[in-house]
Every structure is written in structure tokens, then in C-alpha cells.
């Protein structure tokens, strides 16, 4: 099952494209005119990462989102935190210790939840290979909203839509998990209620 929060549920066909085209296919920038996309090109930051280099770590203060231009990024949980300022760097954690949530490729984006509030990262992002990322950060969004309010409003509206869709997906998954839990509880209840005296080892542990 893919992770509703981190996987790109908005994915469309994506190949190597120009920056403007790459931005246009990201839902957060959908509906922007070519002039607005060109202005956006001047705002975003292009970053390159080596294989296994950490983009950000879980619980780091979030600054913004990334779009994968080329390469791939794995989103994981439970990676041991490297000591040091910023928390980013070559990740020394063993891959087998990681709980992989999703692997993202070109055209995918992640980290947008920290754009509105700068909240903590809920997972760790690590480059899988040589990876080019396009970063769009909270200061850039604030600057855009200040200088070009129409474009800023469109982007903010799109962020709301993306977060709403993610929330709905997460809610649906949570409901599914609860149903499954309830189903398991119901199955386990008769066993717990009358444990056969002759066979104590059959008790179900959840």
C-alpha cells in the first residue's frame, strides 16, 4: 500500500523536461500562466544531491518543498539521526534499518506540508542516486505573495487543494486501518473471552 501523505498521488507522465514544464506539471503550480511560471523559475532553487545524501531529516524544522528534476528520492521513517548542525548530510544509516514509505522519481514532489506553517518534517528524505531537486521554500512563497499577489494566491489555493486531497486520502486510509483493526479485534474477542483450559498456548497476541 502506498503512503498517502508522501507518495505522489498526483503523478502524471513525466520525462526529462524544461524547468518551466516541470513546474507546470506540479499540482501546486497548475493553472499558472507561462509568464508566471517564468517568474517562478527565477525564484526556485536548484540543488544537486549525491547517492544516499540526506535532503532533510524527520523532525527537522520544515522550510519548504522539493520537486525531483532527475534521479530518485526515498522517503523513510526510523533512520538514525546523524549528529551535527542541520541534520543533513551523507547518511550513515544502514538501508535495512529504514522503513521505506515511498520511492519518488522525476516530476514527483515532497515536503509541501511545511510550506504553510514551517512545521516539523514527518519523515526523512534521502537521495537514492545522483539527484537534481528543485526547491520551493517558505521565504520564496512569502516573497511571491508580497510581490505578485495574484500568482501567490493561485499557488496558495493549489497548496490548499493538494493538502486537502492528501488529508482525504489519509483519512480514507485511517478508516481502512480502523476497520481492519476492528475486524481483528472482533476475531480475537471470542478467543480471549473463553480461553480453552486445555490449550492456553492458543491465546492470540495483538
Amino acid at each position, binding site marked *: 500500500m502506498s503512503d498517502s501523505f508522501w507518495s505522489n498521488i498526483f503523478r502524471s507522465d513525466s520525462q526529462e523536461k524544461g524547468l518551466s514544464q516541470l513546474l507546470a506539471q506540479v499540482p501546486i503550480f497548475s493553472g499558472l500562466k507561462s509568464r508566471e511560471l517564468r517568474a517562478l523559475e527565477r525564484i526556485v*532553487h*536548484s*540543488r544537486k*544531491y549525491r547517492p544516499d*545524501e540526506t*535532503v*532533510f531529516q524527520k*523532525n*527537522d*524544522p520544515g*522550510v*519548504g518543498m522539493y520537486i525531483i528534476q532527475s534521479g530518485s528520492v526515498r522517503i523513510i521513517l526510523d533512520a538514525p539521526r546523524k549528529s*551535527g*548542525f*542541520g*541534520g*543533513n*548530510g551523507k547518511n550513515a544509516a544502514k538501508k535495512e534499518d529504514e522503513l521505506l514509505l515511498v520511492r519518488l522519481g522525476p516530476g514527483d514532489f515532497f515536503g509541501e506540508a511545511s510550506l504553510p*506553517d*514551517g*512545521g*516539523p518534517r514527518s519523515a526523512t528524505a534521502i537521495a537514492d542516486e545522483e539527484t537534481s531537486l528543485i*526547491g520551493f*521554500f*517558505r*521565504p520564496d512563497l*512569502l516573497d511571491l505573495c*508580497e*510581490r*505578485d*499577489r495574484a500568482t501567490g494566491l493561485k499557488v496558495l489555493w493549489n497548496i490548499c487543494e493538494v493538502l486537502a486531497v492528501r488529508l482525504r486520502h489519509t483519512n480514507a486510509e485511517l478508516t481502512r486501518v480502523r476497520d481492519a483493526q476492528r475486524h481483528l479485534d472482533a476475531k480475537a474477542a471470542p478467543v480471549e473471552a473463553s480461553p480453552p483450559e486445555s490449550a492456553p498456548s492458543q491465546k492470540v497476541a495483538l
Partner: protein
Amino acid sequence: MKPDRGLLVQAALSVVISFALALFLRDTAGKLFHVLSLGLGAIILPFLIALVLSYVLRPAVTALEVKGVSQLQAIVLINVTMIIVGGALMILLYPAVTNELNAWQRDLPVYVRTLSGFLDGLERDNAALTRLGLNKELRVFWEHNRPDFFLLAVDLIRVGVSLLIFVPLFTLFLLIDGSRIQRTLIQAVPNRYFESGLIIFYEVHQSLGRFIRGRLFQVVVLFLISWLGFYFVGLPHAWFFGLAVGLAKLVPFLGTALAGIGTVMFAFLILRDWFLVGLTFSTLAFVELIDFVFLVPAVLKRRYSIHPALGMIAIVIGGQVMGLLGMVIAIPVAVILKIIAAEIARHFRGYEGSRHAGEPARV
């Protein structure tokens, strides 16, 4: 009350960084600055003024952009307006400035004689003061440093013309390419520190802008109030002392005290009327009241200010390293160091310790 560990870490980091920087600056940057000021004096002053102006004019550029004017058009329009206004001000102020310089040329020897006579009277009555020899030192100093206001006027014209040429050029460059320069600097930050670096750049840029605009507004308002006050009191050279009181705010605490004491002493020596001296003192007290009650809370937000004790330390260090300029830039530098220390502390203690539940996010 339990002390805020984060705040303590931040304060400790600020002090450590400040002292380390001061030790480094004392030996190297002081000499470097001296060489730079000799060789590039003609460039540094216009560049610093342009840097300040770029922060002052940025909101106007943004306001025009919001109205639909392109960034380049807005910058050119504002720069042309600035040249016209600056030129017009120079032409309009030229007679007033030359009159003032003439008045100083005429009056300053009289003021020095008056001060010398006053000291002479004091020394006659007090043997301890005679041993100090203040009057003699004043006369020697005056003989060796008697200013030539004609040469000063020529210098002012030369500097003014150079500023009129270079300042608009540098301002244009900083307004057009400022964000590109900033982005290039951010691009150079390694991935490991990138997000933290981005926040630091953004916070420093924002706080410097607010600080510079706030300080300039404060200086202009205090200048106008004190000028008017001194004018009505009948203090000679009212605008000069008004300007001194306004500019003194650039060096908080020390500058304010020196400008205040200087003005009251001048009023005492020249006006020789306790009532008028009292009015001069009242004007200064009123100016401080306006500053404390209205200006400081309005223009200098708490987040962009530092504790008075730290401010004093910063001014002393700045004065030791770079003299008067060091004292002027001490507070902005201390604010920048505070932001950097806060960001480092935030990362060291992690996200959880940096915010309380329900508190709005920083950036």
C-alpha cells in the same frame, strides 16, 4: 520561574560568537578596514548609502509591482525620482548649508572663547581643576585643530557630487540584482546547511530591512521634533543640534547621552539663561519620551531588538574595532548575530524545543 534553556543557549552562543568575532576583528579586520577606507573610501561610502537606500526603497518597488508595474520599470522609476529629489534637495539646501557654515566660521571662535572664559573662572575658584589644566588643553587643541569651514564646504561639494553620481548607480544595481546576489550566495551553501542557511539569509534580510527603515524613520522624526523645539527655545544652530540628537540614535545609549549633554552644555554656555537651559533640557526629555513611548515600540519590533546590556557590549566592541562607524553598525551586527545564534540553537535543540504548542510558526 524555570529559566528558558533555549534562551540561555541563544544568549550564550551570542556572547561567544560576539567575543570570538571581536577578537578576530580587532587584529585583522581593523587593519583591513583601515586599508579599505583609505583605498576605496570614495566607493565604500556611496555603496553603504546605496545599501541603506536599497532597503529603504524596496517596499516602494514592491508597492509598484503590486500595482502591476514590472520590477525593472518600478526600479528605474524610483531611481529617477530619487535622483530628481536628491538633486533638488541639494540645490534647495545649498544656501542654507553655506549660511550655516558661514555662521559656524563666525561663531565658533566666540564659542571657544566663551568656553575658555568659563573654564578659566572655574579654575580660579578651584585649585584641583587648575591642576587638571582643561583650559590650557582646550586652547592648545583649538590652535592645532581650528577648522577651516571654506575647505569643509569644498569637501562637502566634492563628496556631494560623488554621491550624486555613485549612489543612484549602486542603488540601481542593488535593487535589480540584490535578490540574484542573495540567491547566488545561498546556492553556495552546502546541502547539509542549506535549509538553515536559507532561513538565516531570509531572516537577516528581513530584519536588516526593518531595522534600517525603522532607524531612519526614528532619526528623521527625532531630528524634526528636536529642531523645532530648539528653534522655539532660541538655541543658535538649532538644526545642527536637532540633527545631532537625531543621528545620535544611531549609537543608542552612548550617542543619546553625549548629544544630550553637549546640547545642554552649549545652551548653558551660550544662552546664559536658566529658564532657556531648562527649556532645552525639556525639549530633549520630550524627544526621549516620544522615542520611548511611540517610536521604539512602533519601528523596532522586539524580535529585531537586543537587550540593552548586550547592546552596550556590542557598541563598546564596535567602537574598539572600528571607531565611530563600528559603534553605528554595532547594533545591526549584534541583531544579525542574534538571528544566526537563534537559528543554530533551534537546530541543535531540534524542532520540538523550538516552539510551544499553538504558537505560530516562525518561517
